[in-house]
């Protein structure tokens, strides 16, 4: 199946790589991903898009990788497609016209990573709220979160790690020094 998809798009789709029995194809030009997906669905019977995820290759160029997990109910074959997108561009065509399920998956990828999908019917944030300024799954977003300037209705504060009773921060006082009842041993 993977080879047949590669033959349909010579030069665009790479030779399949295999790991743990799963075939992965790389699509060289992300702008043509919708075309490849439409062919995979119509000619090769991959009628289901199981999953769409996005990877942040922080520090490398191109920065984003969008991963499509295809499955055909008729033949029971899994196939993975990958496309790289540079940080400056951060945009590739939507596949929600091929599989309707991609609608919410792409909204999630936009919400979490900030990758835009051209031609998407309704590209809004989905898990975070409308107006949230950051993309939390990016590698340069800290785990503890960032404060945002949206008063009252929507706000985030950093996770309350500092100041907890059993937390020693780097460079801070240790628990003996912070405990007022602690006595220095005679």
């Amino acid at each position, binding site marked *: 199946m993977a080879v047949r998809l590669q033959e349909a798009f010579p030069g665009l789709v790479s030779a399949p790589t295999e*790991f743990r029995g799963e075939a992965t194809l790389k699509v060289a030009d992300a702008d043509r991903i919708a075309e490849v997906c439409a062919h995979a669905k119509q000619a090769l019977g991959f009628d289901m898009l199981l999953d769409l995820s996005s990877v942040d290759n922080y520090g490398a160029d191109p920065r984003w990788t969008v991963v499509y997990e295809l499955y055909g109910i008729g033949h029971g074959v899994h196939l993975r497609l990958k496309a790289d997108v540079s940080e400056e561009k951060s945009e590739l065509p939507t596949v929600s016209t091929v599989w*309707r*399920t991609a609608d919410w998956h792409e909204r*999630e990828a936009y919400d979490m990573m900030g990758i835009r999908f051209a031609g998407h019917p309704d590209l809004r944030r989905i*898990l975070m709220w409308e107006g949230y300024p950051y993309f939390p*799954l990016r590698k340069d977003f800290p785990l503890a979160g960032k404060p945002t300037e949206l008063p009252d209705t929507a706000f985030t504060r950093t996770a309350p790690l500092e100041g907890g009773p059993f937390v020693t921060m780097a460079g801070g006082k240790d628990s003996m020094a912070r405990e007022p009842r602690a006595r220095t041993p005679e």
Partner: protein
Amino acid sequence: MATQTIEFRDTAARSAEAAASASPEELRDIQGDKLVLNMGPSHPSTHGVLRIIIEMDGETITRAVPDIGYLHRGDEKIAENMTYTQFIPYTDRLDYLAPLANNVAYALAVEKLMGIDQKLPLRCQYIRVICCELARISAHLLGLGAFAMDVGALTVFLHTFTEREKIYNLCESLTGARFTTSYTRIGGVTRDLPPGWVDQVRKFLDEVVVNIAESETLLTRNRIWVDRTKDVGVISREMAIDHGLTGPNLRGSGVDYDVRKASPYLVYKDLEFDIPVGSVGDCYDRYLVRMEEMRQSVRILHQCLDKLPGGADNRSKEPVNIADGKTVLPAKDKVLTSMEELIHQFMLVTQGVDAPPGEIYFGAENPKGELGFYIDSRGGGTPHRLKIRAPSFVNLSILPAVLPGHLMSDVVAILGSFDFVMGECDR
């Protein structure tokens, strides 16, 4: 004397006549605006924190926009910052109605990445299947009870919860926790079955089939239940596949896709069970599919308990973990007396299992549908990216296509028949 005929027609006929020749602005004055109703995020039938913005013309829904994310905790971000083993408790909180099944799915995904999924001891595989199927019965009992309660049949809820309580007791004696089980480890399970547990499960199975039959007599031919669910929320086969539905919701539409049969994992290929499918794809079909799946789970469980290597007491000391110090924590008594095990323990706890670079997708048939994990590993003990394909997330994405055209009161039935969990949807 001349008679005069005066025609009195009803208001609907008069407004229809006026609307036929009205400009768009006048039309709005005649018909009135559409009503926008906010349902949720805390509404009894949204089973958590789903919010739907519903636009209605009279009682008929013309547009539905689901709003999710109220329970978003950033599980995928958290996973990138801890070792594979440390993430297991977070999987309890995905589909919190079937934590055992999530544990198993996640452990299998990491084991596939490490290439050790074929090396799992047979007893471990059987125990994991038992866990999955107990979780499936538990989740379906709740889904069914809540569905019936939402459309007005409260008794069923009380019935099913009686049985769920027994499953929780079984979970407690197996894992030490009723809810947050965290039972699996990479390469095995935390502990073997406790003494007498197999007999307790057998006793439970005999009781649950009676209970399922009783619930069925309360619902399947109940006139009110049939009226509320039949031909409501119909999803065609093509539409279900296009929207990526999985699990009972997909099978209710007549597609016989079940991961346990399509790409078998654990020992499912050695077990006999059937995949029930619906014919119409309405709420009633989805209900029937879940009902039958519980019976099939009972069937699977009986086979597992009979075939369990080592038997109930494990007299022959069959292993439940992979015998590899580099993946599975060594026995506690060995850690304190032997140097090599101490080193293994230290390395596993501080740095985690050493996964090779590569990427895998693993999907398991969970009660709600296909729970998938996509792991992008760059080597080492933490994933570079861990994507959770949550079945509830995908199943809910069909709502804008299904709800319009239905009555407001049908929303409750449709949501109940979808049987979603927001903990998993929002992650």
